[in-house]
């Protein structure tokens, strides 16, 4: 279609986004593509059933059980499935182990790839241009700005999830947690520590 006759077709719309959602939603319902009753359970799953509490259980198990940790680092997808987590955006998981010498951090420079089953849907900052642009170029500066101070003698390894693998960072177990149960440990694990923008 000629753009001259459709001045706003490919530019920023003047219509509020809510109205565009309503129009498209109504048409997709009419065409039988969208069945709200059928899909609301799916949306409920993404909004409430998945989230960082799942990843925290994986991390706490890895801290508590050396055999599980070994399996998790060898085949993340299978070990995460042992705890019942998997599905879209989590079918090819790689777990990155932080050590006293190495701090891992994850980004998706091209879009918003993120391990949904273990972390939920990504926060806005993860999808934002500043994070995606700067995290590969000056990770140490970005992390420090976000309150994550990585000692100068620790190497930062940035992972750009540009293909099918999705990453989960396995943070170091905090000191002074020897007597903790798995449940106690899971409560210490934050979403940001599993993306690699926080240290515990």
């Amino acid at each position: 279609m000629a753009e001259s006759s459709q001045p706003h077709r490919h530019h920023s719309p003047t219509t509020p986004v809510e109205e565009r959602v309503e129009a498209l939603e109504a048409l997709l319902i009419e065409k039988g593509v969208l069945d709200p009753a059928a899909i609301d359970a799916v949306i409920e799953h993404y909004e409430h059933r998945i989230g960082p509490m799942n990843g925290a259980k994986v991390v706490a198990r890895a801290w508590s059980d050396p055999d599980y940790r070994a399996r998790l680092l060898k085949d993340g997808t299978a070990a995460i499935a042992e705890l019942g987590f998997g599905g879209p955006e989590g079918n090819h998981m790689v777990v990155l182990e932080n050590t006293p010498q190495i701090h891992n951090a994850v980004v998706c420079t091209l879009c918003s790839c993120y391990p949904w089953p273990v972390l939920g849907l990504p926060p806005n900052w993860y999808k934002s241009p500043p994070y995606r642009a700067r995290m590969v170029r000056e990770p140490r500066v970005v992390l420090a700005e976000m309150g994550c101070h990585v000692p100068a003698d620790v190497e930062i390894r940035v992972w750009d999830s540009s293909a099918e693998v999705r990453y989960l960072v396995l943070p170091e177990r905090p000191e002074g947690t020897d007597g903790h149960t798995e449940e106690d440990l899971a409560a210490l694990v934050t979403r940001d520590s599993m993306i690699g923008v926080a240290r515990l």
Partner: protein
Amino acid sequence: MDGIHDLGGVQGFGAVEVERDEPTFHADWERRAFRLTMAAMMGGLLAGRFRHAIERMDPAWYLSSPYYEHWLTATATGAVEAGVLSEAELDQRLGRTFALARPIRAPVLAEPGTSSARHRHGLGSAVRVREWHPLGHTRAPRYVQGKRGTVVRLDGVFSVPDVEYHCTGRRTEPTYSVCFEATELWGEAGDPVHVDLWESYLEAPDG
């Protein structure tokens, strides 16, 4: 395509703005945009269309709009390109022009090419990313194109997005995680970056 979405290494952005206790959706329209996109994906409507439709949004619009507006726009664009709805139907329902992403410029591929299942490069191999600027979809970020790196992990065999988005056929290839030193990427010391790449994005380092 060397699109606005390909942000790795772009300078000029400010601090990462973190929202405390951020909800999954900030408004009901975001939930509804997510819902209609998931429905369209589950219905197979967006196969090979979704990411490339986002990439074809006008750059100024892409940078200035919220994330789920990208999803809404890509789903509407993909639905039109799949022939499920027309621009006229969208305009009529909205009462004015329904903004969409720009048209596909890449030619349709007649043949997907030969699939392969065996990794040609081994762990520790030196590789270079092809310098390549297709009009269509690719998952080879601009900041590693032409750059030398080292294979650090052999991953699975997957459909090549560059083909899938522009061809009715599919080509599958091994994928890799490749480590790039900061000196190679940016010309100065820093921390290394690992990028996941399909085999046809890679070539011998001194080829």
